[in-house]
Every structure is written in structure tokens, then in C-alpha cells.
């Protein structure tokens, strides 16, 4: 049976887990180590942890916290937030993580992707792109937690990321973050037609059926935040993950 990776994305702010809506209004969710322990029990495919204030606060990745989390992570672990140098990347891999997610640094130093890929292998280097649509429908990539624009047209930019050595693209829709409106399938389709590297779709997932849908538009893996930390209409905090049976019936068996 073919499987795809279904990935919880956890966002960190000052060592605390938070969840945003359209990258705003961070709401406290809990302790990251606790969440990771629960995700272990749920046997999740992979986990992405993003420190969403590292760049804003102009600081290094929080190595101590990342190491603590890595010690409890028995699935592939990708970390992003505040990564700007090869030395930082090397340090992160030594802590026991598998992948680094790079976003804001790409605005000024695209060469970081190639250099990191050559040393650590492109499979461990994820380029992350946060996408916002303006009122005319024009798509733009943003860095620094949705604050700063990338001047290049979006599709030119993602093509450049591939050419410069990214192993995977993490495409996150700012407009759909935390909204449960479903993935931006058109966005994923357009990007997947341009690049050959795997695309992780993120932003807007509301149910397992959305995973299958976005796969049809060219995603290689799916990620979600709210869906895996909230439960029900009242958005009660509950770390959750679909069972293998559910994923097999509603997604894998149809691929």
C-alpha cells in the first residue's frame, strides 16, 4: 500500500506551544514535550516544529529546548526558526533532528540551501514558503512570520528554491492558517507543475478527506496544525491524530 506522510506542525513561542489563525493571535496550547509524547503514542509519521518568534527576536534556535524535544521524538523531526548559518544547521543535526526548515534566511541568502544540501544531503533541507493572496488574487511569498515580502513573483521564487538545492518545499497558506477551510489546492497544483521536488501542503486542513484531495493536486505530503491540536466546534485543546485504519480507508487505499 502506498502511503503519504501526514505531519503535525507545532508552533513554538518562548518554549510554549501556540496556535495561530492567519499567522495572528497566538493561543496557548500547552507544553511541547507533552505534545510530542502524545504524538509518539499516536505514531505520527513525522513532526515539524517551528519557532515562530526566533527570527523576529533575532535570536538563535533554542538548542536546549530542541534537544529536549528530540530526546522524546521517535519519528522524523524537522525544526525551523531562526536558522541562518551552516554552523547552526550542523549543531541542530547533532541534537538528533532529521531535517531543517529554512524560511526567512532565503530572502537574503539563497546559497544557504545549496551549501547545506551539499554537506547534509538535500533530503534534510526543507525550504518553507508562506504565501499570502492580496485582494486582486496576486500571490506573494512572505518571510519573518508573514511580515516581510519576497519581491520576486511567487512562482519564480519557488523555482529558484528548487534550483538552489532545496530538497522539499513546505508551502503554507497564511490566509488559510487555522481556518479549517481546506487546503489551497490551486496553489499546490500550480507549484507542483513547476517543480520536481516533493511538496508538503499546509494551511486550512479540516478533515482527513482534505489530505486525499490535495494529493490529487500534486502534494507529496500533508501537514496541519489546528486539526491535530483542537477538537470539535468549540476548539477544545486535544492533541489528536487519525488512526492508521482511517488513513488507510480514506486516503492510502485510493492512491
Amino acid at each position, binding site marked *: *500500500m*502506498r*502511503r*503519504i*506522510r501526514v505531519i503535525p506542525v507545532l508552533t513554538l513561542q518562548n518554549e510554549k506551544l501556540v496556535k495561530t489563525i492567519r499567522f495572528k493571535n497566538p493561543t496557548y496550547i500547552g507544553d511541547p514535550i507533552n505534545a510530542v509524547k502524545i504524538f*509518539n503514542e499516536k*505514531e505520527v*509519521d*513525522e513532526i515539524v516544529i517551528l519557532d515562530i518568534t526566533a527570527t523576529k527576536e533575532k535570536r538563535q534556535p533554542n538548542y536546549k529546548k530542541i534537544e529536549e524535544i*528530540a*530526546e522524546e*521524538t*521517535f*519519528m*522524523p523531526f524537522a525544526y525551523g526558526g531562526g536558522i541562518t548559518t551552516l554552523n547552526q544547521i550542523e549543531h541542530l*543535526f*547533532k*541534537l*538528533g533532528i*532529521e531535517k531543517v526548515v529554512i524560511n526567512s534566511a532565503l530572502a537574503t541568502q539563497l546559497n544557504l540551501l545549496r551549501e547545506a544540501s551539499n554537506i*547534509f*544531503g538535500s*533530503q*534534510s533541507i526543507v525550504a518553507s514558503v508562506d504565501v499570502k493572496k492580496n485582494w486582486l488574487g496576486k500571490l506573494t511569498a512572505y518571510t519573518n512570520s508573514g511580515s516581510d515580502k519576497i519581491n520576486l513573483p511567487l512562482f519564480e521564487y519557488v523555482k529558484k528554491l528548487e534550483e538552489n538545492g532545496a*530538497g*522539499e518545499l513546505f508551502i503554507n497558506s497564511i490566509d488559510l492558517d487555522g481556518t479549517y477551510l481546506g487546503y489551497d489546492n490551486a496553489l499546490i497544483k500550480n507549484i507542483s507543475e513547476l517543480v*520536481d*521536488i*516533493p511538496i508538503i501542503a499546509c494551511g486550512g486542513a479540516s478533515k482527513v478527506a482534505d489530505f486525499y484531495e490535495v494529493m490529487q493536486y500534486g502534494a*507529496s*505530503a500533508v501537514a496541519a496544525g489546528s486539526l491535530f491540536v483542537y477538537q470539535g466546534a468549540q476548539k477544545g485543546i486535544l492533541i489528536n491524530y487519525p488512526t492508521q485504519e482511517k488513513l488507510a480507508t480514506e486516503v492510502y487505499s485510493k492512491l
Partner: protein
Amino acid sequence: MISIINYNAGNIKSIQNMLKRIGVKSTICSTAEEIEQADKLILPGVGHYDHGMKNLHQSGLIEILNKKVLKDKIPLLGICLGAQLLGNKSEEGIEKGLGWIDMEVVKFDKKKLSSNLKIPHMSWNEIKINKYSALLEGLDDENRFYFVHSFHMQPNDKTDILTTTNYGYDFTSAVEKDNIYGVQFHPEKSHKFGMQLLTNFSNI
């Protein structure tokens, strides 16, 4: 006690974390003296084939590894690139492998993969068990492991094939010959299935 070989080409910390989790003592060894004392070895590995072999040569560990594995016959488990290095050579590079298992390492045949199957193969996948092994005690064909690789092992002696996995086509995902084991997947990142496999290895 399991000794993890440190030759600057592998994610040692993840393996240590997992062994700690299942209550198995481990140590990291970087010198011939340390390996001489080992009674069980893990050869990790991430990255380019030639980089891995060159680092093993530079670390001066090949002679002692040959002795421990081929003469003293202590169990050795290669993981990912560490498994590929057990063979003769790889299409990825020009360096000769350790040559302990008669196999070549080949690139995924893109022609046999449909367009939605990307290289590297990066996903969880099931194993199909080809022969009985103490390494797979308590595991079965339904069990899934995490893979990330662009090349795969191709044993010349089919009896060395321990498991196969399907990604577009069936490829060898684990090998076993006497005291030598190699797994293409990452047991240290494969939840309870990886815990079971590493527990089994610690009991061999």
C-alpha cells in the same frame, strides 16, 4: 551494550535516544581500541556513499571492523547508508564498499516509477519478510518503517535478502548474512516497530 560507530557520517544522537528509550545501554566509539572491546556494533550513515567510505578509511577503522565482523563474528547492524556500505559498490560513487555482503547499491529506476513517486523515496512503508530472522522477531509484514533514500541494495545472492518493500517496484529493504545485518529504513525513527527491531538486535 551496543557500540555505535562514529565516523562523522551519521545521525548518532537519534540512535542513542532510541536505545535509551528501550533501556539498552550504548556507547559511541571512534577509535580502533574502542571497537576492539565492542560485542555488538551499529554502523549508522547518512549522506553520500563515497563520503561515508572515505570517512571510514580516514578514521582508520576498517581493519578492526573486518576483524570484529568477519573473524570474531560479532553482530553488526548497518542503518541506511550504513547498510549500503556493507556491499561491493554503489552507483552513487566510485569508492569500494566494505564487501561483506555480495551486493551492489543501485539508484531507484525512475522509468519504473510513476510520475507521482518522487526520488528520494521519503515515506513510511511496509516490509515484506523474506526469511526467518531473530532481528524481526515479533514483527510482521504489516509493520511500517521510515525510509529516506535515493539508492537501494541489490544482493547477488537472493538468500541474503531479509525484507523487500514496494515503491513502484519491490526493492531489498533489509539484508542478513550470518552475523551481518543491514536495514535501509530508520528503526531509530520508526516508533514501536523500530523499538522492537532494535530490542531484537540487542538480544541477538
